Structure formats: structure tokens, C-alpha cells
């Protein structure tokens, strides 16, 4: 159990120890007759100041050998992945060209502008940056900036029909309904009095025509009126605090209670009414 992470740690340490580098990286441009135009021995720490110019009839050749850093025995490394990346920093277009590397770590890349490979991205007036990407499970990954290449200008990359929809759209200006105007406090107060006035009228009228409730507090009637009052309180509580599910639940329970109290109360009233007749 403990040996697994330990083994991984050792592997990581071992991998960190070995870095890949190039031996004798060299790039040459040729014209259409095969005569060499320019040769550059690539210093991996610094790109050549002037980009390699390749005309429409010219060709370019890149050769190198991949070795482990610090290893002067000449033994090469064949990494799992060797890619040449062409990148246009202005347009953001890039192309990846996989390279074949021999077991001895030697690789070469031929670029013939008469028949350009598909991996070259659309070119503009600016030179492309050429970088080498190496991936190997036993070594740290490496990305080496080799040189800049000036290729003839190509057709621009086709624009996707949906591309304009990804541009910045105009800011959405929301128009909200203006805030409601609240009437003046005096008017509100006055109409509050008007609204409460009918209660006064009701109380006055009721005091004059109260038919009497002799058995209001008898044990058969009181639970019923109490249940009805409880319903009103439950609804008020719902208005203030409760949620729908709760009020329906409590209302259901209270309803069952009210059914029983109501049956008792109304039956006793009915019995009295019939007895009176």
C-alpha cells in the first residue's frame, strides 16, 4: 500500500532528472533548383533574429537529433510524441505537424512550398512561430522555440457564418416600470377611517337587533364556534407566516375537528327548533 505512492514519487524524481534537448538542430532553405539559400544552426536559447523566408517555389529542411541533456554518448531518444507547431500570433491560427523520429532519435522535416502540407495554418504578412513539442513518459515535456518562418500569404481562414454572433453585443438597457406612486399619508389615513367606518355601523346596528344567543357558551355549541374561530386564526397565521402545504395540512386536521363539533352543535340546535314547533 505504501510502496505505490513511493514508487510514483521515485518515478517523478527520475523523470524530473532527465530533460530532453536537441543535438545539431539545423534548418536550411533551398530554391527551386535545389541550391541552398540560407542555413541556420539553431541555438535553442535564442531564435534567429531574421525569420527564415520561404518563397512560393522554395523549400525548407529541418534536421535534428533528440538526446537527453547532459548525455554526450550520442545515444538518441525516441519520444512518444514529436510535434512541430506553426503559430500565427496575430490571428491565433496554428497548425500541428507530427514528425517521425527514428529509434536513434533522428528526425527531419521537409517543407516544399510547391506542395505545402495540410498542417500549415493560413498565413498572413507576419511570420509564423515554429516550436517543437516533445512528449515522453520517461522525461519532462519539452517545448522548444526553434525559429520564425515567413511563408507566402495564403487565403484567409474561412469565417464561420455564426462568427459575428460571438462578437460583443450592445449592452442591454433594461427599462423598468416606474415605481408606483403611493398616495399622500393624509389621504391614506382618511380613507383608512372610511374603510373602518362600516365596522362601526355594523356594531351599532347589531347592538340594536341582537337576537340573543342564550346557548352560545353551552358545551354543545362552544366547540363549534371555537373551531370556526380557529379556522380564521389559521388563515391569518397563513397570511403572516405559514406556507401553503402547512396551512392545507393544519386546515385538513382542523376541518375534521370542525365537522364533528359542527355536527354536534347544529344537531342540538335543530333538535331544539323542532321541539319548539
Amino acid at each position, binding site marked *: 500500500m505504501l510502496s505505490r505512492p513511493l514508487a510514483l514519487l521515485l518515478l517523478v524524481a527520475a523523470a524530473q532528472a532527465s530533460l530532453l534537448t536537441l543535438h545539431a538542430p539545423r534548418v536550411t532553405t533551398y530554391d527551386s533548383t535545389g541550391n541552398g539559400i540560407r542555413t541556420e544552426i539553431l541555438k535553442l536559447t535564442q531564435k534567429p533574429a531574421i525569420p527564415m523566408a520561404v518563397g512560393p517555389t522554395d523549400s525548407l529542411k529541418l534536421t535534428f537529433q533528440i538526446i537527453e541533456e547532459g548525455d554526450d554518448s550520442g545515444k538518441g531518444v525516441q519520444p512518444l510524441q514529436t510535434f512541430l507547431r506553426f503559430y500565427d500570433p496575430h490571428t491565433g491560427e496554428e497548425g500541428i505537424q507530427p514528425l517521425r523520429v527514428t529509434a536513434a532519435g533522428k528526425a527531419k522535416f521537409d517543407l516544399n512550398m510547391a506542395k505545402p502540407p495540410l498542417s500549415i495554418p493560413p498565413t498572413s504578412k507576419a511570420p509564423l512561430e515554429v516550436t517543437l513539442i516533445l512528449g515522453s513518459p520517461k522525461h519532462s515535456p519539452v517545448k522548444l522555440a526553434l525559429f520564425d518562418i515567413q511563408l507566402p500569404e495564403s487565403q484567409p481562414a474561412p469565417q464561420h457564418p455564426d462568427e459575428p454572433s460571438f462578437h460583443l453585443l450592445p449592452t442591454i438597457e433594461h427599462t423598468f416600470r416606474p415605481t408606483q406612486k*403611493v398616495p399622500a399619508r393624509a*389621504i391614506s389615513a382618511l380613507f383608512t377611517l372610511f374603510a373602518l367606518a362600516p365596522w362601526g355601523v355594523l356594531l351599532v346596528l347589531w347592538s340594536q337587533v341582537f337576537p340573543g344567543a342564550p346557548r352560545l357558551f353551552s358545551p354543545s355549541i362552544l366547540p363549534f364556534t371555537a373551531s370556526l374561530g380557529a379556522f380564521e386564526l389559521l388563515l391569518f397565521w397563513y*397570511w403572516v407566516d405559514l406556507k401553503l402545504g402547512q396551512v392545507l395540512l393544519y386546515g385538513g386536521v382542523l376541518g375534521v375537528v370542525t365537522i364533528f363539533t359542527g355536527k354536534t352543535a347544529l344537531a342540538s340546535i335543530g333538535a331544539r327548533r323542532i321541539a319548539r314547533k
Partner: protein
Amino acid sequence: MPPKPAASEPTSAVHTLWKAYNENTSDRLKFIDAFLVFLMLSGIVQFAYCVLVTTFPYNAFLSGFASTVGQFVLTASLRSQVNPDNKNEFKDVSPERAFADFAVGSIVLHFFVFNWLG
């Protein structure tokens, strides 16, 4: 329909009506009638506020007005069902049953009103 009185005595008809109502209506029915008058006044005041001042908040006005109207309908039907003079119209409905219906209807109405009061 009794013949209309002469225009010079318009108060007489109202007076007669009022007198007849007072004498022929039981206290219980007058009790219910007082409640109906209260509901009518309450509804009128709310509507007048809505027309004269503002409809804001509209949902509160609607629920308040609907509560008066709905309660008026329920109470009026209760009144007609418990009126002993209408016994022949409501043979299957005892006054107690009418009151139970009134109570259930009122509770449901109040539930919807409170939902909308906001």
C-alpha cells in the same frame, strides 16, 4: 304591485316600507341584514378608494373587494335559506344545513382572499 303614491308624498312609500320591514322581520333576519349592509358599505368604500385615489396595490384591492362581494352572496343565500317564509322553496335544506354551507363557503372564500391579499 301597490300603486305608486303621489309625487308630493315620496317619503311615505319609503316610510311605509321601512315600517313594514321593521315590524315583519324577525330579529335574526335583521341581524343578517345588518351584516349585509356592512358588507355593502365596505365594498363601496374600497371601490371608491380605487376609483378616486389609486389602484395600487391592485391585488389587495381585488381581494378586499372580492371578499365583500363573495361574503355578501354567501350571506344573502343564508338569509333566504333560513327565512321561515321560504320554507317551501328549500324543503331539503334545514337552517342548520344552510348555516353549515355558509360556514364552509366563507372559510374557502377567506382562504382565497388571504392568498391574494399579499
